[in-house]
């Protein structure tokens, strides 16, 4: 069901873990739907993402997209990181099954949430970044049968 790349990132996740005193931390998703992603960013004074780590509760695709997302934003500037969309993540993984596309959206949102946290902590405004939804406890609509 998953591509080789997904399986690779799932079984050997890159950048899994926490960053102590991270510049920004973002958590998205909710336990009801079975996916929670948390991203830690270490951003230097030039706005370059020096390190990025994640923790994820979720399916294989959720882990793999988190892992890939960290790889994609690492070394990038904040502005460049904003260009990393769910599509970028999916393509980098050679695709996802249709029912798992939402995982890649979650990965995008998790980066945005961490960037938002960083911006708030540093009292700056990041062009093109809006406040992430606080959906960790949000009720989601059950998928229709």
């Amino acid at each position, binding site marked *: 069901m998953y591509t080789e790349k997904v*399986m690779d990132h799932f079984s050997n996740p890159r950048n899994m873990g926490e960053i102590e005193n991270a510049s920004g931390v973002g958590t998205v998703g909710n336990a009801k739907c*079975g996916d929670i992603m948390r991203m830690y960013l270490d951003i230097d004074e030039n706005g370059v993402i020096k390190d990025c780590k994640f923790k994820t*509760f*979720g399916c294989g695709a959720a882990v793999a997209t988190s892992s890939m997302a960290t790889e994609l934003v690492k070394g990038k500037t904040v502005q460049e990181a904003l260009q990393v969309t769910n599509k970028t993540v999916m393509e980098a993984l050679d695709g996802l099954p249709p029912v798992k596309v939402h995982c890649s959206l979650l990965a995008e949102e998790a980066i945005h949430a961490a960037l938002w946290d960083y911006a708030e902590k540093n009292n700056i405004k990041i062009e093109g970044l809006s406040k992430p939804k606080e959906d960790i406890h949000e009720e989601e609509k059950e*998928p229709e*049968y």
Partner: protein
Amino acid sequence: MEKKIYLDNAATTKTRPEVVEAMLPYFTEKFGNPSSIYEFASQNKKAVDEARGIIAKALGAEISEIYFTGGGTESDNWALKATADAYASKGNHIITSKIEHHAILHTCEYLEKHGYEVTYVDVNENGIIKLDQLKKAIRPTTILISIMFANNEIGTIQPIKEIGQIAKEHNILFHTDAVQAFGQLPIDVNEMGIDLLSASAHKLHGPKGIGCLYIRKGAKLRSLIHGGAQERQRRAGTENVPGIVGFGKAVEIALETMEERKEKQIQLRERLIKRVMAEVPYTRVNGDRMKRLPNNVNFSFQFIEGESLLIMLDMNNICASSGSACTSGSLDPSHVLLAIGLPHEIAHGSLRITLSDENTEEEIDYTVDKIKEIVNKLRQMSPLYEDYLRGSRQK
């Protein structure tokens, strides 16, 4: 381990070699249509009736009360829709439970869209149906009670005899989905007051695509599949002779080996539960500890998600499930685990292991080792576990 460890026998089972052996002649040598008039075909009619006899005997039923279908799902659909149709003049109310298989639940939804009313009775935290609630749900318009014999996810065995009695007292037909129970537990339709019973061959080491419905003599069920006069004019379509023969053979073996398998499986099951509970913290066993199928274990591991666990087990050559096979592609947590009161995030972290008589202690021990390793790895990855540890540290 090099060898595949198959621990998903509630999803489907390996067809026994003896069963395949019994089926083979009916593909090529004795391929006739049982409805045909010539001698060549009458041997097939005989073979079909022999299988029917084996299954009837296994259920304590009469041979004329067994009707072959294309599987457990068709049997469930037939039982519900055709009863609804036949007894519509008596009433439009059906009672079932919250933990039925989708073959029952989605059929009930269909019936609700067509003017029927359905009460879904709760189960307690052990997954056993609340009999008092069931009794209270009965109305003058109730035409059918459908409660599964044993649950496919958490393996709980329902108080079938008691339900049969209640149904009889109120003159209501009683259907039970015995797809998981048949072949594992002794069943007697008369002693248990069962009027309709669904079974499926591939859950008891028979072939896929063949099942049956027991219909008590006198129940005026209509047909679900109309056409030729097969199955005493109640289920049309050329008989799947090899499938029926295989079903019969599988039931024969299941009956003969039931006690032996039960003992062996309970022993393995208990070893598995004991070790996992001792070695993996923040774990629970779902479903009644005693009233459960000999081959079923259902764990919830806190802080982790089931699919990840399954894939990692798969990478270690272990086949298991985190709910019913049909829904493992879905995002919903299992409706059964929610019905026994688990919160969503814990329901998501469940693992179903269902044994066959081919499993060994070695396999179980290896599986426990892997579960331990993987659950640990996934918890290290889990933000929920991180929050939990932080919370405990702060206390």
